[in-house]
């Protein structure tokens, strides 16, 4: 229905009428003219042939107009219709009395049509058309062109029509301009409307996304029930408090948000200790040293995890691993901090049990080994019953293996201590050249027996570090005995001590079988054995390097390795020299501070 309606309307629309619609007034005028001819006796037909021809031409023009109305493709041909109309009017006028015909006024209709077309040329065309219509009776010789008035009419009427056409043409041009500008405005409005719709839909999408994010955030926030998550502003005033925090610390969000400071739940001594470690100058700009100490690294944009103690409302102390991060606004300015804490009570307990277990195992394994070794020795020392040479050999084997077991127990115990994060270090000033010289000397008999040349290079004298001499000796022993084990007869093991900036560097270099590059990463893992070791049946369990690395790390040093298969391997131990690394700062706070009288023993909380 609607399409039919719009189709009908398209024929009738005033700003773009179809040729048929434009033709309609003339058709009506012709019908009226014919009625007048029939009923008014004074109006007569002077030449019936011309009247019929005129009506026929009009019918033809009307058919043409109608057919052009259905096809926009041929629209430009529609100008033919008024031209033909001029001929039809001319013929009709000639057949109804020529210059005395009462129907000459009909000429105005095609004149309006032609003049209304776009372009000045149509004004002239309208005038020519009207001239044809006026002059046609004379062309057909219906009435001879005799009088001056006929000639005057033939010139005057077209001139008047020319003026009328010019006025119509100009008026339609103006209205066309107006219509165009109205159309342009309408289009602009349409575009704006379109844009508004787009914005609206974008806004809607954003809102959907925002809601989804909000829901996700809420569900994540709600899902964290074990870890305590506390948000604060830049002064430490709490503005977010999750379920985990409620469980851990015994207060609800309403009791804390906007009312309590995060410091209220910390152990004061720990904060003071940390502030001292960070060397905050007393009375400086730091308003609250405790809070500043807590967020120091987060403020600098680092993600820091550190062990702290939370204190709940009932005074219970909870050991936590706390990660502090900063919260920033869209400009990157810090607006607060986020404190995510995990209760590590259980981990601490497990660690304690592990220590107990290690102690027990150590005791339980060492005691029978003591008996084995002790009684073997008694047997060898028994002067009343001397052993045969063969028996001596057998006992030597048993003794050697008992010692091997004992070393393994020692290594396992030490590894367990390393794993549990603490092993004893007896710190004192250590002269590294002495350590190197002693270990080289003790390894020399084994090297000689294996046909290997030991070279000792002391390239810098008087290098002193703070460390445990026994443990550092153990590292050198491990590296040198490894080098000897992995170097074939005729090779060389070079041990050197040198200085690099503020570090001492001990290198142990061999000309042995080397280690595959793909295995270098795993070299320091517990129980790892290189394929060159297993392939060549070099004895060992894969603990030596793990232990060495742990010892070096505990001394704030580094253990590095370079190797090429078939060429040799070089291990480097880098240790900070006394006096180096004492400067205060976030990166050095966990370093041991060398002092005039170092504590005899230090338990490292972590390595």
């Amino acid at each position, binding site marked *: 229905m609607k399409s039919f309606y719009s189709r009908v309307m398209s024929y009738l629309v005033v700003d773009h009428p179809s040729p048929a619609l434009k033709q309609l007034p003339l058709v009506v005028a012709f019908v009226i003219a014919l009625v007048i001819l029939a009923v008014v006796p004074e109006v007569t037909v002077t030449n019936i042939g011309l009247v019929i021809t005129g009506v026929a031409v009009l019918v033809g023009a009307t058919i043409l107009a109608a057919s052009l109305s259905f096809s926009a493709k041929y629209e430009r041909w529609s100008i033919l219709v008024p031209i033909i109309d001029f001929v039809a009017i001319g013929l009709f006028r000639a057949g109804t009395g020529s210059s005395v015909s009462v129907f000459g006024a009909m000429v105005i209709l095609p004149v309006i049509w032609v003049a209304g077309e776009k372009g000045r040329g149509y004004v002239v065309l309208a005038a020519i058309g009207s001239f044809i219509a006026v002059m046609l009776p004379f062309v057909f010789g219906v009435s001879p062109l005799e009088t001056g008035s006929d000639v005057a009419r033939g010139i005057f009427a077209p001139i008047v029509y020319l003026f009328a056409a010019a006025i119509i043409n100009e008026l339609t041009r103006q209205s066309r301009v107006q219509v165009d500008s109205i159309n342009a405005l309408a289009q602009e409005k349409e575009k704006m409307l379109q844009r508004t719709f787009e914005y609206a839909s974008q806004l809607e999408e954003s809102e959907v996304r925002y809601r989804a994010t909000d829901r996700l955030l809420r569900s994540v926030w709600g899902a964290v029930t074990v870890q305590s998550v506390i948000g604060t502003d830049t002064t430490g005033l709490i503005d977010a408090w999750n379920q985990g925090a409620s469980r851990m610390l015994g207060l609800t969000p309403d009791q804390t948000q906007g009312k309590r400071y995060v410091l209220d739940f910390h152990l004061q001594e720990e904060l003071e200790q940390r502030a001292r470690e960070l060397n905050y100058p007393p009375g400086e700009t730091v308003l609250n040293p405790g809070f500043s100490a807590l967020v120091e690294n987060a403020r600098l944009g680092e993600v820091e995890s550190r062990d702290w103690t939370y204190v709940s409302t009932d005074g219970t102390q909870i050991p936590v691993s706390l990660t502090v991060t900063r919260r920033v606004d869209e400009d990157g300015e810090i607006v607060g901090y986020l404190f995510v804490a995990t209760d590590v009570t259980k981990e601490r307990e497990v660690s304690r049990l592990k220590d107990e277990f290690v102690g027990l195992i150590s005791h339980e394994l060492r005691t029978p080994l003591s*008996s084995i070794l002790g*009684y073997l020795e008694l047997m060898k020392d028994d002067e009343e019953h001397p052993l045969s040479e063969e028996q001596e050999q057998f006992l030597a084997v048993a003794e050697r293996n008992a010692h091997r077991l004992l070393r393994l127990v020692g290594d396992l115990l030490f590894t367990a201590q390393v794993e549990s994060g603490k092993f004893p270090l007896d710190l004192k000033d250590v002269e590294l050249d002495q350590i190197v010289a002693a270990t080289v000397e003790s390894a020399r008999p084994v090297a000689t027996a294996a046909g290997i040349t030991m070279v000792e290079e002391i390239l810098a004298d008087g290098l002193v570090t703070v460390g445990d001499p026994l443990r550092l000796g153990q590292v050198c022993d491990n590296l040198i005995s490894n080098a000897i084990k992995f170097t074939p007869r005729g090779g060389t093991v070079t041990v050197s001590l040198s200085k690099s900036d503020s570090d001492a560097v001990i290198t142990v270099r061999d000309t042995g079988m080397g280690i595959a590059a793909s295995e270098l990463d795993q070299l320091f893992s517990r129980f790892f054995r290189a394929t060159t070791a297993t392939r060549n049946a070099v004895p060992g369990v894969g603990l030596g390097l793990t232990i060495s690395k742990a010892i070096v790390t505990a001394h704030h040093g580094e253990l590095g390795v370079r190797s090429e298969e078939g060429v040799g391997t070089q291990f480097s131990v880098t240790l900070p020299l006394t006096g180096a690394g004492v400067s205060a700062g976030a990166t050095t706070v966990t370093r041991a501070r060398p002092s005039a009288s170092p504590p005899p023993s230090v338990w490292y909380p972590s390595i």
Partner: protein
Amino acid sequence: MSARVVIADDDADIRGLVTIAARKAGLDVLASVSDGDAALEAIRDRLPDLAILDVAMPGLTGVEICRIVRADVTLASVRILLVSASADEASVRAGLESGAADYLSKPFSPRDLTARLSAQFPEGSE
């Protein structure tokens, strides 16, 4: 007169080893017991010149006995040698701080123990 010794260790084999080493050094083994309480009782009853005590024993530990003995003036003449399976310096120090005269780590050489005891208690000095 040879020096008299009380030996305490929960491990019978270690007790045997210490006993042999002590005898080789010419010491008179008064008692060889397997727990801390019996050790303290033997020390109080027999008033030995030396007590060789295991650190980890059922009942009182060697270190605890050491503290009790050192706090008792009537036992001032008793010297104590602690034997322990833990070799780290912290436990050695704890042992010595409790008042022990000497400290021995397992495993130990019976030969060395004999030598040490002989040096401390030359025959007929007591």
